[in-house]
């Protein structure tokens, strides 16, 4: 299934970001649109069935209207979204490869109460990526018991 949600991630240097995301996380550049001067107008990367957009700060101003799209590198390493990436297997190796390519690991791979093994990393400009791999199918009751949290499938009152 192709998701209707495509996160678009903004960088000071999108061309460097494409190379880095390929080397560190194993994403593949699937579409690259550049203008006369070689600047990235729009780029897409794929990973499994997932897809992200990669763009330049302000670079898509005409398309975006008065939005202010900035890299975390321009905002004291703060971001307004992050991206969860589902892995089928090999999360520890994935983390090791990312770290070797320069990712800053902010949370080492660890099993979570909701039945997934998760690690978190910062990319070359400070965007946060959260990788998770399912390890166990748990019911909501199991998760509640393990965490002490209340878990429902609807909006709170």
């Amino acid at each position, binding site marked *: *299934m192709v*998701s*209707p*949600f*495509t*996160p*678009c*991630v*903004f960088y000071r240097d999108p061309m460097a970001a494409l190379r880095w995301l390929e080397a560190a996380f194993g994403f593949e*550049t*699937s*579409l*690259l*649109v*550049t*203008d*006369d001067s070689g600047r990235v107008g729009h780029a897409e990367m794929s*990973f*499994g*069935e*997932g*897809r992200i*957009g990669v763009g330049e700060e302000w670079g898509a101003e005409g398309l*975006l*209207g008065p*939005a*202010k*799209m*900035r*890299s*975390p590198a321009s*905002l004291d*390493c*703060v*971001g*307004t*979204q*992050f*991206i*969860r*990436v*589902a*892995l*089928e297997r090999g999360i520890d190796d994935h983390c090791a490869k990312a770290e070797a390519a320069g990712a800053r690991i*902010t949370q080492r791979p660890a099993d979570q109460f909701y039945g997934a093994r998760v690690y978190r990393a*910062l990319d070359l400009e*400070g*965007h*946060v990526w*959260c990788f998770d791999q399912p390890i166990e199918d748990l019911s*909501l009751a199991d998760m509640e018991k393990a965490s*002490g*949290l*209340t*878990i*429902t*499938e*609807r*909006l*709170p009152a």
Partner: protein
Amino acid sequence: MAGFQPSVIYQDPKAAMRWLQDAFGLEVVIYIEDAAGGFVHCQMRLGEALISVGEEWAEEFKSPLQLGGKNTQLTSITLDGDVDAHCERARAAGAVIVAEPETQFYGDRTYRCRDLEGHHWSVSQSVEDVSREQALDRVPGLKITGWV
């Protein structure tokens, strides 16, 4: 299933959940709170695809409300249905429409809006199959690699 799931950060995630339900028709799949009734985590869905709604849970995350409206990422939504009707629903729920629905050279009809805390969303419906050659004819000067 390997894939990407956007996680959007809000100062008031409970209000955001209601807003995303009203404006975009997203449905809550899982909502987690602590013993004191505090927000922990939420996932919402469109079709079978998920998005996370989160709060400012670590120092590297802030709502656009705290950043003068700046965004470091935006989320694009591809609809099966009518993008113009989606836009009217969002507008009625309080979305600020940044760009009205307009058909783009690459065959999508797209509108863009800001949500209740200033996150930008781009919502599209495919209305025409456009080949790489057609796209290049329409916008001279572009160089396109990988158009399929």
